[in-house]
């Protein structure tokens, strides 16, 4: 049996003395999209922040292609091939859109961004504008483009469709599917079921910091998910 691209085992963590994620396990293979869904405040973003390294795990293990990365800081995980697009403050507000995109590029060029600029013309229109002046949805698009253009084997997306127009959500889904076909693994925290259904291979459904439902998309239908997404 091959080693999964990402697996996490018995992950627990939280803030201060409050544990919000209680021993969650899961895995995603190469070229697979794992969607983490659930109501607000059930621990979805905390879990993905533990995968990115922004929230320390109190116990449990995170492995990238079999290698434990639990103790690595976010920058160390990024160097090993984990890209992360956070839900909150997803861009560098004080930098221009161009600088947000080319920040870590040695040649400081926009080569490689053509698929994103083609689908999201707002990026090209606002290239020399400060990212902080963009709307919430536009910032999400910029963050999404930056994350996917890093061409890492694993991309973590925290609510990428939040505030984004439906037309652009469909473009995001297309881009994820293209990269998935090329072997990239995605872990996506999402509340928008219509978007999740377009991209998910597997679901991890959380409630109160625990997994309540897990399995391939074919085995979990909308009727099973809806009660877990809305109060």
């Amino acid at each position, binding site marked *: 049996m091959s080693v999964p691209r990402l697996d996490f085992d018995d992950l627990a963590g939280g803030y201060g003395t409050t544990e919000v994620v209680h021993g969650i396990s899961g895995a995603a293979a190469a070229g697979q999209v794992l969607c983490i869904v659930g109501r607000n405040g059930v621990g979805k973003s905390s879990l993905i922040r533990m995968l990115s390294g922004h929230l320390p795990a109190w116990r449990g293990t995170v492995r990238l292609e079999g290698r434990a990365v639990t103790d690595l800081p976010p920058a160390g995980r990024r160097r090993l091939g984990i890209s992360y697009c956070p839900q909150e403050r997803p861009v560098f507000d*004080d*930098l221009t859109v161009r600088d947000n995109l080319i920040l870590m590029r040695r040649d400081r060029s926009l080569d490689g961004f053509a698929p994103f600029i083609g689908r999201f013309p707002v990026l090209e229109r606002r290239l020399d504008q400060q990212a902080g002046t963009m709307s919430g949805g536009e910032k999400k698009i910029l963050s999404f483009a930056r994350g996917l253009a890093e061409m890492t084997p694993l991309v973590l997306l925290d609510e990428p469709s939040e505030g984004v127009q439906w037309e652009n959500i469909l473009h995001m889904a297309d881009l994820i599917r293209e990269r998935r076909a090329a072997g990239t693994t995605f872990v996506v925290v999402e509340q928008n079921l219509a978007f999740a259904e377009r991209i998910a291979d597997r679901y991890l459904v959380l409630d109160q910091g625990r997994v309540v439902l897990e399995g391939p998309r074919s085995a979990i239908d909308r009727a099973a998910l809806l009660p877990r997404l809305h109060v």
Partner: protein
Amino acid sequence: MDPILVTQGLNLVFAVAVLAVLALGLAVVFGLLGVLNLAHGEFIMVGAYCAWATTAAGLPYVAAIPLAIAVCGGLGLTVERWLIRPLYRRPFDTLVATWGLSLLLRKAAEAAFGLSFRNVAMPLPGTVRVLGTDYPGYRLLLIAISAAIVGGLMLWYRRSRTGLRIRAMVGNPDLAQAVGIRATRLAAGTFAAGTCLAGLGGVMIAPLVPLQPLMGLDFVLRSFFALVIGGLGSAVGLFAGSAVIGGVDSLVSALLDATWGYFAVLVVAILFLWRRPGGLFAR
């Protein structure tokens, strides 16, 4: 043109330019890392003693520049690693820690050089005629060097890859980590750059002031006041703060005496802290 007016005008430009360089290191460390380095003046003192050691060894004055950068840079990296890094995001603790460091550096200088004053010979003696008035050549050179250092650093910060990453780290540290910026290394480099700039400032002013271990205190206060008045985050603010402090000091000192000049600086700084704590050009 009235020679007194020309001399006072050049004195003002000189005071502003040199204060801008002396305050630059403090501005870099405070503005980018949130650390108010109370030992900044002692790094200026270390730089000045590097200049003294260079001339005492019979080496050309310019040799003091790499020496000060090496000593202050090495000290800065060591201090950042073992003293500052565990205290980031704890402003009061860094204040106390750097105050302790300033005492340590002063005592170390006392042990090495004693409390007596030392002088450094002028590396560029003589005067240059400006608008019909003779003005010290070394002071004119320092004005040019100060403008080059501040302008060059600001340009580098705006245009270079590392400058871009520093701006990203300062604006959004969590995202900076997520995109792979080595924040720890960048912060260490930034702190060391601040101490190197202080050392460089020390080399520049060494021939103009008497050297002794307590000399740094005055410089850190003036630098801090310049930041308070100018506000953090821009070259314009740095120059504006230096202009107000340097200008008030020069003007009042010329009209009355140096004590009144320093008193006027304190009054202006207190007024700004009271009425406009963000400074003239707040970020």
